[in-house]
């Protein structure tokens, strides 16, 4: 497995990676800034994401919306912010590549002169509405926030959500935005991929032409955080407008590409991936205690989280559901998974890698992958090794990973319908959600 590429670093520090794929007359522009909500601090959360919105509101030499000229050129475009990074992408017809690079470079180099209080106020309102739509008004929408708050120390950068707290978002000022831009939005903290129907030499020429004269910007020190630990199990309760109670179980786990990361990813698939998974078979099909159950190894730059989520069947208490899950988990700690289970999950992993090669752009297309490997590993060509980790996993190593990580203290959060705490976890405290 490989995604062929060439990487060069411009004199101002911008990494440029080019991948040719002439399947369709389109080119993907994919730009990562190595900044996310983990670069924020308590009391000032939601900033990286709010800033992403402002990147679409015009820059010094094109002080109009970012979308209009690109959509007209036939582009699709978007951006997203996570705890670890912020990405921006356009997929354009090959003939519109200059336009996309002109606009991307203008907002990288010259955003601030175009930024006004009015734009800022408008996007702050939009973000507050995004939060209402995707978290507050969505069933179980606040559960993830409550889990993170409990799993990490108060000052750990993964303890707050990327969307931020409403109070922090409201308190953000234009000065904050300007300081944030100067600290993080510059060539030295960015990585650019051009992938698709383009000649490599021409691609590097264009990158140099549009980005080469931008100022490099200051050093961005890596975010430091202590290895998170829980002193003991935490049991929490959250009431929500939902029909059925749902249980969230979360453990600290290894970070992205660390030892045991791939093993826990495979284990998550064996116990919680699809209808063939152990816990689906046991809880949904045989015992009918749950209506759905999933497991995921969610690995990020600083550290990971292994999470299981199960929705209770009507009349089933979360205590009973938690007990049934614990029995299933104990099995994975005490016995290796079967050879058939392991092979099946490995094939699924391989297939997932192959299916991701189908698109040059967008979220998780080839350009996004090259940037992820470059930013997180310093090696855009890491895809082969990434997949190889899954091939090397063994049933013994899965068992060891389960024993090592999933016997430690964890967070259990029960979400229950308003007023029905009796069917929630016993001895649970009310969850704190900012």
């Amino acid at each position, binding site marked *: 497995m490989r995604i062929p590429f060439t990487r060069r670093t411009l004199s101002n520090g911008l990494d440029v990676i080019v991948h040719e794929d002439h399947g369709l007359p389109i080119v993907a522009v994919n730009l990562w800034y190595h900044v996310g909500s983990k670069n924020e601090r308590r009391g000032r959360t939601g900033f990286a994401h709010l800033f992403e919105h402002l990147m679409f509101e015009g820059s010094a030499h094109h002080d109009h919306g970012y979308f209009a000229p690109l959509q007209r050129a036939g582009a699709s475009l978007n951006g997203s912010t996570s705890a670890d990074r912020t990405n921006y992408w356009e997929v354009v017809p090959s003939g519109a590549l200059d*336009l996309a690079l002109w606009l991307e470079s203008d907002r990288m180099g010259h955003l601030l002169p175009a930024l006004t209080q009015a734009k800022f106020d408008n996007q702050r309102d939009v973000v507050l509405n995004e939060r209402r739509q995707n978290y507050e*008004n969505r069933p179980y929408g606040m559960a993830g926030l409550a889990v993170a708050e409990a799993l990490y120390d108060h000052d750990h950068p993964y303890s707050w959500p990327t969307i931020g707290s409403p109070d922090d978002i409201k308190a953000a000022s234009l000065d904050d935005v300007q300081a944030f831009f100067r600290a993080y939005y510059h060539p030295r903290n960015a990585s650019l991929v051009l992938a698709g129907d383009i000649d490599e030499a021409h691609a590097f020429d264009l990158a140099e032409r549009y980005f080469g004269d931008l100022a490099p910007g200051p050093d961005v020190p890596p975010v430091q955080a202590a290895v998170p630990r829980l002193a003991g199990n935490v049991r929490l309760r959250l009431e929500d407008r939902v029909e059925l109670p749902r249980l969230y179980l979360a453990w600290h786990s290894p970070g992205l590409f660390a030892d045991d990361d791939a093993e826990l990813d495979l284990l998550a698939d064996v116990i919680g991936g699809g209808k063939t998974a152990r816990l689906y078979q046991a809880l949904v099909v045989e015992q009918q205690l749950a209506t759905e159950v999933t497991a995921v190894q969610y690995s990020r730059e600083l550290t990971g989280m292994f999470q299981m989520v199960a929705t209770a069947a009507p009349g089933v208490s979360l205590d009973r559901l938690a007990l049934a899950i614990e029995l299933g988990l104990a099995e994975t700690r005490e016995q290796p998974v079967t050879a058939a289970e392991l092979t099946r999950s490995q094939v699924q992993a391989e297939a997932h890698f192959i299916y991701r090669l189908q698109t040059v752009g967008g979220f998780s297309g080839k350009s996004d992958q090259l940037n992820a490997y470059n930013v997180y590993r310093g090696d855009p060509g890491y895809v082969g090794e990434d997949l190889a980790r899954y091939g090397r996993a063994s049933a013994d190593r899965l068992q060891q990973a389960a024993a090592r990580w999933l016997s430690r203290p964890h967070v259990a959060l029960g979400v229950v319908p308003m007023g029905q705490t009796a069917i929630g976890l016993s001895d649970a405290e009310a969850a704190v959600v900012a």
Partner: protein
Amino acid sequence: MTVDRRSLPVPEPPPGIQFPAVTRSQLQPGLRLWTVERRDLPLVCLLWLWHAGTSADQADTPGLAALTADLLDEGTSALSMSALHDALAGIGGQLDTDIGHDATVLTVLALSRHRERAVELLVDMAERPRLAPSDVARVKGLRLNRLRQLRHSAGALADLLFMRRLYGEHPYGRPGIGTEASLTRFTVEQVQAFHARLVATPATVIIVGDISHDEAEALVRRHLSTPERTPHPSPPVATSPTGSRLLFVPREGAAQSELRVGRVAVPRHSPAYHAMVVTNMLLGGAFVSRINMKLREEKGVTYGARSSFQFLEQAGPFSVQASIQSETTAESLRDVLVELDALADVRPVTADELDSARDGLTRGYARGFETAEQVARAAAQLALFDLPDDTFDRFSDRVSSVTSADVTEVARTWLRSADMQAVVVGEPSASLTGLGGVGLGVPEHRLADDVLKG
């Protein structure tokens, strides 16, 4: 060489696109195989399309088609549910079951080295699902739970009530998921009988990827049963029933209002299809469209607002959808109605808007055919609506020839506020304020159970 930042680079127009060549065979009366060979990656996308969807439900059996579709992967005559999913996982299989008003679609994405097994599993699920009593009972229970959960999902509830308001008793107005009453009632025999009818419905099998047509044909033929296939009757012509034009569903403590505004519009075969696609693009189909620019970029009252025409066998809905800050509900609804009327009248489409919408659609068209699944689903549109082979190749020319007069005509005919109906799911005090004054009459209250209980 430095950049001239005084003006934006002018893009060169992209080449026209050619939809990949589709090889076609008639396997049996009523059963076609269409393939597109692509050898770039070691994968195949298999798609089984039945020309029948939730509209095949009867008035007293809403949800039967969807329940049956959901049971297709619960085991086959040869494999138990868990053995089937073991087998699917073992070929790298990603299975999707989709049911719409007019179609039921099974899709399997698989590694091409396992293509033989993939075809076998697909045909088995389509033609020989197990439909065992215990599985039917379990899946019925799971679907009932999902239906009850919809009560708390403001967006899904708004969609269901909106379609019911627009279509009334017409099949498009029924909740495809069913009702509590209907789901509770269904028997194994009903499911088996529905499947027997489904399997005798005309179907198109579409295979895209690392496989030749001849091999695909041989593999599909190997596993086919040979039922006689006869079409389902088309759904009746759709018109909206009379009644209150503004429905309000209270949701205590809701953080926002879910808003739907629209009407019954036109079928896929409408001669105005391309004019409507262009009109929607500038009205609410893209970020820079009028409605989103108004509600999000000017007023900041939503994360995003959009509009769409849904093109179906019979007249599908036009709708505007947004999740709105509660205290601005009435104002936002009024803004939407003003934008709809303005396009027909005081602010007709500008030359710049028209160019932008047409170019956005045509220049970006190639992106829609990148993955095997995208190509398979595009081909499925041709099959479902019996569209000419060159539909996609001619799309850009047809769109480019849409004029401002065409857009104005669409707006005058289809987008008058006087013809609109609306549904709001929101917080009762804040969202209701002023809602009676927007011009759609007094809001009439509805409850989730009005559509979900049955």
